């Protein structure tokens, strides 16, 4: 996946908050060059981004704290340019250049 040509990547910002950053090397903000096409040569969407993050960015072995059944686990909100992904088409949303994708883990403490 890292062998795509330079023109074939999309620059995006991915952010983690609510404790999820601990699964991603304790880094809240990641500037990424995401491959423009997924494994089936379809335009990269959120589902592909989640797989890509698991395989290429996440060092923590506890993948189940981020994904479940090939999708983001319950209790994580996905926000595309500061809007709930439900407003944008959920994991079918096709990622655009300079999109900001924010993963928020719900908190329960008080």
């Amino acid at each position, binding site marked *: 996946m890292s062998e795509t040509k330079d023109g074939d990547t999309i620059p995006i910002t991915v952010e983690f*908050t*609510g*404790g999820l950053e601990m699964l991603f090397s304790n880094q*809240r903000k990641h500037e990424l060059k995401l491959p423009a096409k997924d494994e089936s040569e379809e335009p990269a969407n959120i589902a592909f981004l989640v797989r890509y993050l698991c395989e290429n960015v996440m060092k923590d072995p506890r993948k*189940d*704290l981020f994904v*479940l059944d090939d999708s983001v*686990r*319950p*209790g*994580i*909100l996905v*926000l595309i340019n*500061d*809007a*709930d992904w*439900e*407003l944008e088409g959920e994991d079918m949303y096709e990622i655009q250049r300079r999109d900001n994708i*924010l993963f*928020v*883990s*719900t*908190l*329960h*403490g*008080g």
Partner: protein
Amino acid sequence: VMRRSWPLEKAEYKRYGRQLIMPEIGLQGQLRLKNASVLIVGVGGLGCPAAAYLAGAGVGKIGIIDGDVVEESNLHRQILHSTSRVGMSKVESAMVFLSSLNPNVQLTPHPSRLTPETAIPTMKDYDLVLDCTDTPASRYLISDTCILLSKPLVSASALRIDGQLVVLNNPPLPPGDPKGGPCYRCVFPKPPPPESVVSCGDGGILGPVVGVMGVLQALEALKVLTRTPEPPSLTIFSAHANPMFRTIRLRSRKPKCAACSSSATVTAEALTSGSLDYVQFCGAVNPVEAL
């Protein structure tokens, strides 16, 4: 019957003067607050500042529900309590503070945990509910009950250096009405896996972080009581991020929501009969401590 010529007592004009002169509140708004009743579920890190500012503002009736007693490890963030009241029930301790801040407020103590059996009778007499609790199970229970009773809900949470705030079921229209505000299940249809849930006891919490979220709950409560509803949004806070605050546009009601849609399966009967087992639903790692 003789009509009173002044809608507020003389001392109330004095006490609330700084709010009364604001066009955003005014006499009209102050009377709405005086005639309102708010239930605060949990007087911990969120509930303490929320209760203080709502009592200060002159909300007529405030109910407080909590089953815990004050511990020394609470005091760095639960600023209504005090060292000499360690061991007292949190509800009783909060009553001491709130009645000395504003004796005009009618306080109702509920010194026990909210359960599916007690939720409807406990919450039904209030206009508005604040979720200041600390488990997923209690958050689903409170949201479901607010839908069943048509109450708006101000929900906040905090952990370590992060916080979240959302106003739910506002406007509080009947289940099936897509114009009502979303509920907790619309936003989180499935509970998080129990191993992903971290409490403040386990993960830690910085006092002003949960404090900010609690004060914002009081503010949102005043807005719900005096203004027309705004589109649903989630405020997320992170003390070391820049900017610290971020506001997210949320979805409207989910067409197939288990609680607030026309095909809802959460009913008053299911709740009170105990057939909705929230601890089971949330798969608590340690059910004894949940709810």
